[in-house]
């Protein structure tokens, strides 16, 4: 089996699924689908299907990890065995370990955690089907689940990747684009402040391409932020597609 490098963008600038360079895949967010978790969210983003549950703040069992002045955030990002083409072996792999760590750090910077000393906030990100961009989708859903749990945050984190395929900078790579593309740049920000909480990159980007890719991702995060607020509004205000105008923008403080 030899991978032939397919053409990912056609003459009209259309990608294989018809998107232009600056378009997101379809995204659906549902706030609060789980009964037991203190907060939860379900996201479908392209082929990605991810369930997130939040427990806490609750007493941290491992005393040596307790922080005397704040809650710690423990994200556990896990791929279901059936979430990928070749069945994933049970147990946390190194990739899942790394993503869990960087998502923990990303959220810890956003949560106003000094009200909860010596506790842990546990965020379980269960990837049910993986189709490229799971860390961004997971982080996006985790924000919603934390808000659903009533945990005070300085803002909702929205996350999205940009990348490069066929030498062009584009938004939100799908699985094939990610596999045979030239670069991937996952970004997580608080859209209301521009603070960057997640930033990774691998592949091959010039500094100008980086600027363009980052811009695409940042703009997309604004749109994703709207979807997050709509999901929360649907749950808490029984509203339709748009949140209240007078609600403080993305602020979810208790």
């Amino acid at each position, binding site marked *: 089996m030899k991978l032939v490098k397919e053409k990912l963008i056609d003459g009209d600038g259309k990608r294989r699924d018809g998107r232009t360079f600056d378009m997101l895949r379809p995204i659906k967010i549902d706030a609060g689908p789980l009964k*037991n978790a203190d907060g*939860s969210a379900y996201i479908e983003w392209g082929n990605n*299907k991810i369930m997130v549950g939040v427990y806490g703040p609750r007493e941290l069992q491992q005393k040596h990890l307790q922080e005397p002045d704040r809650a710690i955030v423990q994200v556990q990002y896990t791929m279901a*065995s059936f979430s990928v083409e070749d069945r994933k072996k049970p147990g946390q792999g190194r990739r899942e370990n790394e993503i869990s760590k960087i998502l923990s750090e990303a959220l810890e910077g956003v949560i106003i955690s000094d009200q909860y000393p010596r506790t842990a906030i546990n965020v379980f990100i*269960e990837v*049910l*089907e993986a189709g490229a961009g799971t860390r961004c989708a997971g982080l996006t859903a985790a924000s919603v689940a934390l808000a659903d749990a009533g945990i005070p945050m300085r803002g909702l984190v929205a996350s999205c990747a940009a990348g490069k395929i066929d030498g062009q900078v584009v938004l939100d790579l799908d699985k094939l684009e990610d596999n045979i593309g030239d670069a991937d740049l996952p970004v997580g920000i608080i859209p209301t402040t521009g603070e960057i909480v997640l930033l990774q990159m691998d592949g091959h980007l010039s500094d100008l391409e980086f600027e363009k890719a980052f811009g695409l991702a940042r703009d997309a995060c604004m749109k994703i932020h709207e979807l997050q607020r709509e999901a929360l509004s649907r749950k808490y205000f029984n509203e339709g597609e748009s949140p209240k105008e007078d609600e403080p923008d993305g602020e979810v403080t208790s």
Partner: protein
Amino acid sequence: MKDIVPELKIEQIKKLALDGERLDGRSLDQFREFTIEKDIIGTAEGSARLKLGGTEVLVGVKIGLGKPYSNKPDHGMLATSVELKSIAHHTFEPFQATTKAKAIEISRVVDRGIRESGMIDLEKLCMEPGKKVWMANLDIMVLDFDGNIFDASTLGALAALKDIIVPASNFDLGEDFQLPLGEMPVSTTFVKIGDHIMLDPTATEEAVADARLTVTTDTLGNLRAMQKGLSGVLYYEDVTKAIKDSISIGNMIRETVRGN
């Protein structure tokens, strides 16, 4: 410190049971409503999301190739796992021995029900005896827990196994074909609290139960698997009553699943 809440709860449950009632309004031998969503995971050959009351499981089936067990050289293989994910309940800690032991027991009981009923016709899944057979990995994730994972898992597995296409052509092994199925087993789980036997327990009922009995039956009303659990005892009459109920209720459940 001894937790006093369970004792109060037990009293309440027993008192209600004297009148044939339960905390959630069901009768003692009533199964909760359940819903099934099928084929939701694109990367799995079969999948289903099953909600049974407040319990939710996601079942995925991946089909691959493997070397058969040496004592069943001409049979395909089935491997069943149940994961009690932390996301599902604040008491589930997958790395703790107690959670692990619970998950293993459930997965083995679900596996026996499916295997012993012959639900999957494993003999038809042999490609080359002793060398190459089809293997079904049946993985059950518990996402939300309100009791009775035994039955929720079996039901979810039934739904996920239905209508699976074995992707033989992907492996250059001829044409794709439908996973050959036989019997459709249904499991029903009872708990005993005091003198009362209750079907399809909630998490609250399980937490105070003395004994548990799972009975898996087939279309013809034959027993295919049983498992007693917990440290309370059962009497012979408890068991024969459970078997009787299991057969009749199992048939109703089977019809509902078939309809999906």
